[in-house]
């Protein structure tokens, strides 16, 4: 049975004659534990699709079901809870909070979770250990390299052990060597059971995915 089911997803912006379709009639299914790459040119609709899958951008038409939950049938605040429990985000530009240390950034998704502070710290340290940055936990983001920032972002995305990890061009700002390290990290997480959906331009990165969804002009043109 499919874990994620997207049916006839359409997203239109504007109104009247100025309507622009960012994505049209996109349907696909993803099984739990899959590593899926979404590829396409700039403006193809990849980021819109990722935002819809991230429970942050309601489709104009269509539905998204995750673990049998109709994501856009939820109220906005329930969708916030859904994001916290089901999703981890890795952004292209890391987007760490600059005034929080590495370990505090990683703990952020646990801020609103009711749990003892020690438990939260242990989870954050565990996540940092997974990405190999435990020794830099008390540094500020400005005191670590780009590759390390990306790894902190991954640690933040996995700290609450979400079943799905959404990555938007996770290696877009990294050199070849670091790209390889980050992709291996994602592959390792996938091997541990995390479903990964990654938007990428890079064929090298796409090579780590088990399946590719090719998007062009807002439409799904190929389900690899």
């Amino acid at each position, binding site marked *: 049975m499919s874990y994620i089911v997207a049916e006839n997803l359409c997203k239109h912006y504007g109104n009247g004659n100025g309507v622009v379709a960012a994505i049209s009639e996109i349907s696909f299914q993803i099984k739990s534990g899959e590593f899926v790459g979404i590829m396409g040119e700039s403006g193809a609709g990849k*980021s819109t699709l990722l*935002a819809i899958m*991230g429970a*942050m*951008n309601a489709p104009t038409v269509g539905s998204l079901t995750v673990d049998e939950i109709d994501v856009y049938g939820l109220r*906005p*605040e329930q969708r*916030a*809870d859904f*994001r*916290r*429990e089901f*999703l981890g*985000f890795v*952004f*292209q*530009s890391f*987007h760490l*909070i*600059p*005034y*929080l240390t590495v370990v*505090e950034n990683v*703990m*952020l*998704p*646990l*801020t*609103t979770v009711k749990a003892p502070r020690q438990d*939260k710290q242990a989870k954050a340290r565990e996540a940092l250990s997974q990405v190999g940055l435990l020794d830099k936990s008390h540094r500020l983001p400005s005191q670590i390299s780009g590759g390390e920032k990306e790894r902190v972002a991954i640690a*933040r995305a996995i700290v*609450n052990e979400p079943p799905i990890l959404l990555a938007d061009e996770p290696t877009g700002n990294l050199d070849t060597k670091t790209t390889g390290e980050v992709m291996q990290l994602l592959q390792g997480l996938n091997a541990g059971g995390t479903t990964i959906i990654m938007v990428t331009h890079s064929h090298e990165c796409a090579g780590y995915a088990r399946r590719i969804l090719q998007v062009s002009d807002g439409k799904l043109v190929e389900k690899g």
Partner: protein
Amino acid sequence: MTLKEIALKNMIRRKGKAAFILAGLIIGVTTVVAVISMVEAMTSDINAKLEKYGANILVVPKTENLSLTYGGLSLGGVSFEMEEIKEKDLEQISSIKYARNVAAVGPLVLGVINVNAHRVLLAGVDFEAAGILKPWWRINGTQPAENSVLLGAETARVMELDIGGTIEIKGRRLQVSGVLEPTGSQDDQLVFVRLATAQSLLDKPGRISMAEVAALCTACPIEEMVKQISQALPGAKVMAIQQVVKGRMETLSQFKKLSYGVSAVVVLIGSLVVLVTMMGSVRERTQEIGIFRAIGFRKKHVMWIVFIEAGIVSGLAGIIGYLLGFVGTKIALRFFTESQTIAVPLNLELAGGAFLLAVLVGLAASIYPALMAARLDPNVALRAL
């Protein structure tokens, strides 16, 4: 990691913004505290001075007759042969609950006498109490001794008498020891002698016609004192001199209205400073708030962060603002008033009020920015990423 820690760390990072909000609120709170403290101190001082300025309660015998005088003009038929109060009864005033608020009790015995073919009113007074009750009296000469008199300015003029002259009352020769400078009151037309002398001359031993009371009413309502004195002197009619009381109350009321008006304007400006600065801060943090929302923060969590920041800065502003206002008042009073005796005590109620005011203004002014932050669409923020 808690919402409070996020708020605190953000404030530390954005020290300039926090300092701006702090400064805006401190100015507001300091001004409010200083204005209220100054008005309170000056009001208290003015009140104390006003209270020394004559009697504000009259004790007269109960009578069924209506007075036939108006503005000093007698329309006839006024008799002073009414039932008098016993001088000894006045001691009861010292037993009332608010006795410590009684500054002076001035017994007065009145009677009509004939002097050099003139009918004139003789007033026996306690000159020690008169010093408090009538501080505007200026005597040319000296206060009268047992066998001397003090003349009102008009009496001296009509009778063509001056210091050193003598008058004869009921066969008793009395020397003029002093003449009052014109007061513009009925006192100008009287002949004053000591209370005991008047009682003897008028054949009213141990009795008085009326008494004037100077009550210090900062801490008590004058109506309450009138009630207490009435209970202590059941045979007398006790009344507040409404003109004096109302005049004082109006002065206080105007001072307070002014202070509250100024305070309201300053508080409004302070709240606008908080509002504008917090809105700027929220706009600056669009991406950050987007990340919070993307990783599962609810709207209320985002709002809490804004409110915690506003609450901390406002509370701090309340404390600093009160202290600055307190010190500022002490310094300002030295420049704005001639009196060196005005006290500005540490007022815990005002301190608490200043703290609450600052926090309430800070939080109220942060409601809109907090809502703005909470309503931020995470997708819009994500696109901004």
